[in-house]
């Protein structure tokens, strides 16, 4: 790998680090098993201290996870768990004290996280805070209710970059005097900071030790610099570009460790001042900057927005924006980067983004429509200047850095589960003649109730979360929590706009139209026969024929069809229901349409549906049409775009369009321009976000049969990016089905 005399180039170092990353991904797959979520920066703890357990993820999923078995948290509750800011902060600090350091001599950045603090929280919720009065309806509608949901809002990292950990500690100690009633909260914050400072300091020591015994001059120098940088960052704010990147690495590793948080936000703007200063002083070349950014991006697949407007509407695109793109372009690992697109926003960045999308084929970048998200957010009663500051910082979501608590992408209402309740209720009611409008009436009634139950749950969360597992870490990077002594979940920040997503739109729209057309209008099936086929999961040749008959209709996505009308009706009704009232405690909710990775889980909990779906098969994803809607064939990109644009809730949260495109579409500059035009047209029609895969059909089919043959195949699953080989077979199947519909 290296020569005895020469030094390694940045490219060689990146290649070695990339290979290492693949190896670490493979190891994770072996030990933890498939994981239907973002590829993460986490690497496995050393074998002698690791243990595989079942835990709850930051999104409320039951997952397998790896913990460091030598760490046992201290309980402060009879249940055996630990709750509240003081115990949380103390335990986090104790975890950091035993958490291994990680320094790779080729890497200019130190630090990686190896465990999820949340996996030690058993039980996750304090049983003293009882919400059993909501259980029945939460279970009835199979709601992902969000109580106990973690992070999913955006910190403002300029706070940390300006103060450094020492400055943050001073700030906490200052405000402790102002708010003596919040002593426990400030205890927790201090413990967190002290824990991090200790952890960073251990990296400095370790790097120093490694440097002393390192024989290769290039690597020794690197290790010495790492040691110096880490030592300074224990207390001081970063001064150089490299230090800023290293600060962001530690920030992110600890954020993920604490509760799964994963956003850098407007990364190009965060790095720009350091880049400009250092290059002007002749201290930094672009090549070196790209290398440091690449090492930063290697450490975590955090969510990033590039470009976009400042509050006054001026374009934030800068040379730093292109450097970030270039870094991932060279690295070719999973990345969650969105380019914000609009009239007055960097056309060259847009162009470069599309080029890279088709050249690298790793599902990045994604594209966000500036105008449509701004116009939507304003409808909540906010000024345009504020809307512009709402930054893409998650799978399908935006938040105002440091000032807005959103609990994005956690709360989900599965329309198909609500539909199922309505259908069964109608069929069990002997006093009523079954009919589509009657079914709709009940669907709307139950959907309204589901939204109400969600709203009550959110109030409960906002009331008690701070006493269970407060957002201590992100609190440090917000405006308000430290100053007021209030957790972000409990009134610490200025804006509360709680995200409430619907999912399985196509499954329900197609079900309504199938019933309307085949049962009501054509009379080919009676309602009772329909229910029989659902109960028996379309069994037998008669059942299969009936199933195909229900599917073989113009479906949502085909354009101008009844199914398209139903989809719009469902989306508009859902939007109205979410927006018409705040929660009982007065918090605003914003509707979106997104399923994250839950298409498989929602499907497993649901029997057969009238759109011809088999029992327990995955449901449709977010606002997207079901694959094969085009008379059994795959939908064209413009059909998909027109269909999804028509169902946007339009209040600033997104309903992302998921496109899976063939690489052959772009063979030239002209092709790139056409894809740009496709995206721009979608945004002009009100579309908000586009997630795109550029994948070769044959390759994905082969990879599905034997994932180990393509260990570096990266796919944009829904909003997140992952190694295909690390997904469960079911979720892989969902991606494959999208791509090969109708074949």
């Amino acid at each position: 790998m290296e020569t005895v005399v020469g030094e390694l180039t940045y490219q060689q170092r990146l290649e070695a680090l990339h290979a290492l990353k693949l190896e670490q991904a493979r190891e994770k797959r072996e030990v933890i098993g498939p994981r239907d979520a973002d590829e993460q920066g986490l690497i496995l703890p050393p074998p002698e201290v690791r243990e595989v357990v079942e835990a709850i993820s930051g999104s409320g999923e039951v997952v397998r996870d790896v913990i460091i078995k030598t760490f046992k948290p201290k309980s402060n509750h009879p249940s055996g768990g630990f709750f509240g800011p003081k115990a949380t902060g103390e335990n986090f600090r104790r975890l950091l004290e035993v958490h291994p350091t990680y320094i790779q001599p080729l890497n200019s950045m130190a630090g990686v996280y190896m465990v999820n603090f949340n996996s030690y929280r058993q039980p996750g919720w304090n049983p003293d805070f009882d919400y059993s009065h909501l259980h029945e309806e939460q279970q009835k509608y199979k709601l992902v209710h969000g109580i106990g949901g973690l992070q999913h809002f955006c910190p403002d990292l300029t706070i940390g970059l300006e103060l450094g950990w020492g400055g943050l500690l001073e700030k906490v100690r200052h405000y402790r005097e102002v708010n003596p009633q919040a002593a426990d909260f400030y205890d927790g914050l201090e413990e967190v900071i002290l824990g991090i400072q200790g952890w960073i300091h251990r990296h400095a020591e370790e790097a120093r030790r490694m440097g002393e015994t390192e024989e290769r001059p290039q690597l020794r120098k690197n290790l010495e610099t790492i040691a110096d940088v880490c030592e300074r960052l224990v207390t001081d704010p970063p001064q150089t570009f490299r230090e800023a990147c290293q600060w962001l690495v530690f920030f992110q590793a600890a954020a993920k460790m604490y509760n799964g948080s994963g956003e850098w936000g407007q990364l190009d703007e965060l790095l720009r001042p350091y880049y400009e200063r250092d290059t002007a002083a002749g201290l930094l070349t672009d090549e070196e900057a790209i290398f440091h950014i690449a090492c930063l991006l290697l450490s975590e697949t955090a969510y990033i927005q590039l470009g976009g407007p400042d509050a006054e509407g001026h374009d934030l695109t800068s040379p730093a924006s292109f450097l970030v793109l270039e870094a991932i372009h060279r690295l070719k690992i999973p990345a969650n980067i969105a380019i914000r697109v609009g009239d007055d926003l960097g056309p060259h960045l847009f162009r470069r983004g599309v080029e890279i999308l088709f050249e690298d084929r790793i599902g990045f970048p994604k594209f966000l429509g500036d105008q449509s998200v701004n116009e939507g957010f304003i409808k909540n009663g906010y000024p345009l200047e504020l809307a512009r500051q709402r930054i893409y910082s998650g799978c399908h979501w935006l938040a105002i850095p440091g000032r807005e608590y959103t609990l994005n992408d956690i709360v989900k209402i599965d329309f198909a589960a609500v539909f199922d309740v309505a259908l069964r209720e109608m069929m069990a009611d002997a006093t009523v003649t079954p009919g589509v409008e009657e079914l709709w009436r009940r669907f709307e009634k139950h959907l309204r109730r589901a939204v109400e139950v969600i709203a009550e749950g959110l109030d409960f969360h906002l009331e008690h979360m701070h006493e269970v597992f407060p957002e201590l870490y992100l609190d440090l990077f917000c405006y308000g929590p430290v100053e007021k002594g209030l957790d972000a979940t409990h009134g610490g920040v200025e804006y509360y706009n709680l995200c409430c997503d619907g999912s399985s739109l196509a499954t329900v729209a197609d079900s309504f139209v199938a019933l309307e057309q085949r049962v009501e209008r054509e009379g080919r099936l009676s309602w009772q026969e329909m229910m029989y086929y659902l109960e028996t999961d379309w069994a037998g040749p008669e059942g299969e024929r009936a199933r195909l008959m229900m599917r073989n209709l113009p479906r949502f996505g085909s354009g101008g069809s009844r199914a398209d009308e139903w989809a719009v009706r469902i989306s508009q009704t859902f939007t109205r229901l979410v927006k018409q009232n705040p929660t009982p405690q007065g918090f605003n909710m914003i509707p979106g349409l997104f399923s994250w990775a839950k298409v498989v889980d929602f499907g497993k909990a649901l029997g057969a549906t009238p759109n011809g779906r088999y029992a327990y098969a995955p449901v449709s994803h977010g606002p997207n049409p079901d694959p094969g809607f085009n008379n059994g064939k795959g939908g064209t990109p413009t059909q998909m775009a027109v269909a999804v644009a028509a169902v946007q809730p339009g209040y600033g949260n997104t309903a992302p369009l998921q496109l899976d495109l063939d690489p052959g579409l772009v063979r030239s500059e002209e092709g790139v321009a056409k894809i740009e035009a496709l995206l721009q047209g979608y945004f002009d029609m009100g579309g908000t976000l586009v997630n795109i895969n550029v994948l070769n059909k044959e390759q994905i089919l082969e990879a599905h049969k034997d994932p180990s043959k393509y260990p570096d195949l990266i796919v944009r699953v829904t909003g997140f990016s992952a190694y295909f080989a690390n997904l469960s077979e079911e979720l892989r199947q969902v991606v494959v089905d999208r791509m090969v519909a109708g074949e």
Partner: protein
Amino acid sequence: MAHHVSRITDHTGTIFDIERFAIHDGPGIRTTVFLKGCPLHCLWCHNPEGISRQPQLVFTPLRCIGCGHCLVVCPQGAHQLLDGRHLIDRERCRACGACAEGCYAGALELAGRQVTVAEVLEEVLRDRAFYETSGGGMTLSGGEPLAQYSFTRALLQAAQAEGVHTALDTSGFAPWRRLEGLLGYVDLVLYDVKHMDCERHMALTGVSNERILDNLRRLDGAGQPIWIRIPLIPGQNDEDANYHALGQFLAGLKHVERIEILRYHRLAESKYANIGWVYPLQGLKPPTEERAESRRRILLSYGLSQTIVG
């Protein structure tokens, strides 16, 4: 035969497909409308279901679930299930569509349906936002649009009235007056040139190329913007002599904005069996990139710098 129709949008015609996000049929993002019926019968035709003007039954065996419904409803008894295989007697089939209507598996479909201009336009206009962002529009193709002259003319007029850019993809095999009559409504003509030698052209397509080349000269003389499309079929029309003849001919035209060499591919092969036809070019391998590039160089040598390999 056109009868008097009071409004442009009421004109009817037979189409077999409307393809959205067509990015190889002219500039920008387009919607391509495929008209059924063609006077030519090219050996390599990628849309064989567009050649006959009449509706045809298309059978996709992979989708058949063997439910036997088609056997029951077919008035001609054209369907058979033999040893688990579904066979169709094409002699008996009248393409009435009864079997296709009841085939929920989507294995049986009728290629070719009657539509009004209004219906076509409604679908075309759905992608209007993309035409605007990309400089795209509507392309008429097929089959041969000129074979349904009044329908083609009405479609072009209606699209133009809506501000949609129009392109006409044609073989040019029709009386000149038909092309002339459309000039006011066509922003761009996509014109195929299959072979410069008249006899070879006849063998490959079933018709002579004299009128085709003559019409092309006249189009050019009328100032019509043109893109030339040259299908590259190995062993059939890819010889040097043909390309030199093409180079000479095209160099004499003034309004050819682009020349596309279209490499033969085999993606359409299964369509032939699906309509009960034998594929004429069995086993033909697509041309390599190098071969296509060498053809392009011949044209470049005639100063035709607007030549690309598509």
